[in-house]
């Protein structure tokens, strides 16, 4: 059967990598839905639209006879408008599910976040998928990502639709607007004196290509028999690092150039982020999805930093 893929948020950071990966393996029918269009490829059809508008997304799914949807769209977690998180992550996701059910989509893969299990206080030490959502989420981003994930997983099995959710942690990579330039800024401004404790807190990272690869695997392996339908999976590079090690190496690698990232260096969220353990057990993704990182952390940092240097 020929799959018609729809990548929602396909012009975004992770979404674009998924599009590229599908294209590289020779998929003929790839459709992108996004708020804005950043990439113009001849063979990829692009729908510009707003997820919070049901007609925008349902028309796309109906018209293109979509069979598999990968939903990566979300406002960036430092977006200031709280209502936007609800509008996109919850209402928008509801619309995606509705449209999938109404127009016979077979598979829906949702990009959730590892932070759905984070309460902002507790340590996350080698956490696996048996961990519950916290009573109170740390922020509205986490809360709405969790709500979206719940909706997606509950839709599994309805009308022949199979769903699963991926929870990546600390995605970074070339052209990354969040992680790496922010770190470099921190170092430049000498904020690393805020290094708290003794660098004994371990943190997980995910190189963006690995994250994209997990999505492609999820679509391919989504079935009842694989025990993947209705399930959530943590996705990381599988090699937690003492937090500051990645920051330091990223900064050293670019030392010669003078990068001024657009991100403010050190938001409150990031301070919190850096002083607790935050790493996950990804055995479920390994055994059920067959996930193994394609690019190791060291190589990933090299590629990411190189792109930061080249872009300035």
């Amino acid at each position, binding site marked *: 059967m020929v799959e018609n893929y729809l990548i929602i948020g396909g012009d975004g950071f992770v979404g674009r990598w998924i599009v590229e990966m599908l294209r590289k393996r020779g998929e003929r029918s790839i459709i992108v839905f996004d708020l804005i269009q950043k990439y113009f490829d001849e063979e990829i059809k692009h729908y510009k639209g707003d997820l919070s508008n049901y007609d925008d997304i349902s028309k796309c799914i109906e018209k293109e006879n979509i069979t598999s949807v990968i939903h990566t769209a979300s406002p960036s977690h430092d977006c200031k408008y709280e209502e936007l998180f609800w509008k996109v992550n919850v209402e928008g996701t509801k619309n995606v599910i509705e449209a999938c059910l109404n127009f016979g989509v077979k598979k829906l893969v949702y990009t959730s976040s590892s932070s759905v299990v984070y309460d902002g206080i507790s340590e996350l030490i*080698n956490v696996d998928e048996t961990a519950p959502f916290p009573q109170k989420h740390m922020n509205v981003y986490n809360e709405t990502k969790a709500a979206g994930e719940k909706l997606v997983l509950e839709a599994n099995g309805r009308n022949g639709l199979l769903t699963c959710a991926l929870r990546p942690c600390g995605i970074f990579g070339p052209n990354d607007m969040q992680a790496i330039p922010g770190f470099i800024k921190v170092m430049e401004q000498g904020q690393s004196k805020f290094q708290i404790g003794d660098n*004994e807190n*371990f943190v997980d990272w995910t190189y963006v290509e690995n994250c994209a690869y997990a999505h492609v695997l999820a679509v391919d392996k989504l079935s009842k028999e694989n025990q993947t339908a209705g399930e959530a999976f943590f996705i990381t590079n599988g*090699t937690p*690092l003492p937090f500051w*090690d990645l920051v330091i*190496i990223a900064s*050293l690698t670019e030392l010669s150039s003078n990068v001024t990232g657009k991100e403010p260096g050190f938001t409150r969220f990031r301070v919190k982020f850096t002083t607790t353990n935050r790493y996950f*057990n990804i*055995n479920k993704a390994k055994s059920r999805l067959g996930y193994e990182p394609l690019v190791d952390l060291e190589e990933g940092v090299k590629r990411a930093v190189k792109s930061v240097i080249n872009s300035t």
Partner: protein
Amino acid sequence: MASVFLQSIFHPSEIVALVQYKFFRPSPVNFIPPEQKAKIRCYEFLSQTSRSFDAVIRELDDDIRDAVCIFYLVLRGLDTIEDDMSIPIMKKEPLLRNFHEIIYKKGWTFNESGPDEKDRQLLVEFSIIIEEFLNLEKKFQNVIVEITNKMGNGMADYAKNASHQEYGILTNEDYDLYCHYVAGLVGNGLSCIFSASGLEKSELAKITEISNSMGLFLQKTNIIRDYSEDLSDNRRFWPKEIWSEYVDDLADLKKPGYEIKAINCLSTMVLNALQHIPDCLTYLNKLQNESIFRFCAIPQVMAIATLTLLFKNHNVYNSIVKIRKGETIKLILKCTNIYEIANVFRYYTRVIIKKNDPKDPNFMKISMACGKVEQWCQTNIPDIDSYHLSTPKGLDKNDNRLIFVVFIILAFTAYFLGYELNN
């Protein structure tokens, strides 16, 4: 003994451990009837050839102690022949390849070791080892023969290889293979003995890759530590694939002007060894018998402590770097269960993280290797942190008492020293 205490003067917990070890620990009494002269002689050889193995072997359960002791002595005999540069290869090769048959030849002895071989006497009286070997149960004999056969042939292949003779070990693959022959096989063989005795599950004999890692981790740590000693004897075990990235000749590493390269090369060697740790922990986590656990765990914790001390330590190139006796004893006392061992490993990998330097080309890889140890602990021993929290209380009480005793001893010593000086 006094100097051992002095070394640990700034590490009070080690003083406590030393006192505890010396005064509060029953030493094992293994009675051998006086008529079993051969067996008595074997244990004498054991204590002469290796003090560290002697101690751990003596504490093993009765069912396996003799088998492990003879296994050790047979391999020691083989090793003495391999090591001996005065035996020409024409003579050495058949000895190594046939050693597994020699151990069935009653009365066989060997008097041609070089005068400097410190264990030459073992071969002079080797008939005694053979006699005791033949007294072992068949199931243990079979393991010893199989491993001796593999090791002897591996050593012979290595000794015959001309490029090894000239350049030492070439690739990382060679390095792993060499370490497999001289140490990994010991891990395989011991696992078979443990399984055959029924003290451990039969599965243990089958996880050969993991028991191999146990040997590799120890051997690689020793190879790093012994750089200067080996080089002065013209033995080259550091793989060329690693050092050639930094210098043209292995001996350059210790020369002035090469300090940074030497430290970076050392990091590559340490990283290579670190990667075996998750396997070692997996192995230890499978053990059920307390005496076997201690027997296996003690060398492993010594190795991680040593490796941590070697990391970033330029003295490796001029001297033999060793951990303090007090630290050793403290570690030996900790070898009681997997929680303690995992915490020891976590402690040392965190020290490595602290010593790690972003300017080191292996910085990230070392970080990742240490992160793997951390994650192994949390995945395989999920309640490790609660163990950590629940134990110190009990230990503290004990410690306080011991600290009190130590201070009394120190006070008396100071008093008498002062008394002598005044007079």
